[in-house]
């Protein structure tokens, strides 16, 4: 049995799929950066960013709403920003009592909170589109070409490679525990929650220990095959005119977004 919940690549034939991964990575990073730099309440610019995203969706042949459907998963993380509702000074809108605090929502706080939600929502969608249209090894390769330090790209590559192995291992450990989670007839089984938490802790420890030992074996196997610190690849990534053109157009569009947002 294999765990493949992380594989988000969607095979398709489209303009975006055919682009060089470097272009996709660069434009995605530029787009996310642009979102982060747009001032609070730049609604029109946010609107144009969204259109830019929809266009990318459309060109990827995966359907206009493709990233929207998958974006909600990241929403809970944006809730970390909830504190800005109360912490930015401004005109008070409403006050309510929570445990031992009186919390006041200000207009500036609300403005910033909604802006942060929109920024993260747009950014996450572009990242989702990136991993849906570029194979993971290609993304790593693109990062290398874009001068990301090889130690970082190697770590990311291994993380991705062994995430599946690790998930399989977790799955088998859980199954073994389930298999022996027995009961005597007419007796309450499972002991206390504290005991079960202890067992779960042991399992996490075992997992760490095994991963640690596995990393040793993997590294030795790499050395045995002549590993010297970076991966050579014969992947023939080449930038064509269309790639340059797309990059230029996308970056100009993003610059215009920034102008609109600051007018």
């Amino acid at each position: 049995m294999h765990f493949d919940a992380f594989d988000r690549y969607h095979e398709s034939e489209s303009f975006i799929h055919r682009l060089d991964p470097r272009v996709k990575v660069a434009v995605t990073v530029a787009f996310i950066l642009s979102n982060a730099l747009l001032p609070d309440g730049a609604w029109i610019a946010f609107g144009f960013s969204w259109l830019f995203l929809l266009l990318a969706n459309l060109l990827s042949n995966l359907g206009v709403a493709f990233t929207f459907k998958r974006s909600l998963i990241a929403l809970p993380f944006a809730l970390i920003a909830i504190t800005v509702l109360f912490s930015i000074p401004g005109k008070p809108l409403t006050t309510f009592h929570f445990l031992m605090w009186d919390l006041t929502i200000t207009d500036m706080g609300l403005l910033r909170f909604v802006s942060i939600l929109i920024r993260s929502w747009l950014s996450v969608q572009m990242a989702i589109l990136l991993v849906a249209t570029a194979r993971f090894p290609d993304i790593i390769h693109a990062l290398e070409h874009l001068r990301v330090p090889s130690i970082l790209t190697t770590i990311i590559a291994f993380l991705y490679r062994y995430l599946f192995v690790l998930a399989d291992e977790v799955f088998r450990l859980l199954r073994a525990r389930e298999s022996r989670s027995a009961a005597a007839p007419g007796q309450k089984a499972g002991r206390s929650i504290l005991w079960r938490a202890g067992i779960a802790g042991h399992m996490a420890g075992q997992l760490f220990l095994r991963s640690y030992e596995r990393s040793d074996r993997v590294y030795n196997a790499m050395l045995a095959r002549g590993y010297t610190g970076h991966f050579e690849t014969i992947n023939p990534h080449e930038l064509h005119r269309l790639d340059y053109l797309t990059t230029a157009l996308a970056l100009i569009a993003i610059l215009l977004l920034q102008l609109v947002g600051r007018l």
Partner: protein
Amino acid sequence: MTNVLQVHDLHFSYHGGISALRGVSFEMCAGDKVALVGPNGAGKSTLMLHLNGILNGHGAVIVGGQRLTRDNLPVIRAMVGLVFQNPDDQLFSPTVFEDVAFGPLHMGLSMEQVESRVQSALEAVRMSGFRDRLSHHLSVGEKKRIAIATVLSMDPQILVLDEPSAGLDPRARRALINLLRELPITMLVSTHDMNLVEELFPRTIVMDEGQIVADGKTKEILDDEKLLTAHGLEKP
């Protein structure tokens, strides 16, 4: 003789739609030692995972007269001791003692009972001196014995072993065979080791493509060369 295990018309498919079990039926009496053989992918492991309800297909699994349902799952799991092929999957605690004690502790037994269960389970697999050792520092053969002890401590009525002799050196394999011979317990053992089958098991079940294709006296099955070649097996 009473039936300790009845499997009736069991069907199962994995998510991908691959049919792993296609109508499996057999019975085991108390004291039976049965070998389960067949090529890789025949459905042996899938069948074993049904015997204590890790997988749930269509059909009936009846253990000790009780039909396996969601409600009696924990009780059935105490009756069917399932030992996985890879002992690293089986052992998830830091020390041998904690691993062998997991089953009885989970069942809510008192500390004295747990202590004596662990003691006798370790004695049964001849590993009494290992109770405070770290599981992940044992050899494969030792791990396999401890894995068997982890289910013996639940005092099961039937022992289900998935390829117990795989990956063992000759001495560890011999020790394991002697151990299995001496254990006074009903057991179903899946294996590719035909010498082991001939030596230890009076009865053999042959599986292929999700079905039982032969079930009978080991000697007769091993003499039927046509049957063996048809299902990718070899006479020892």
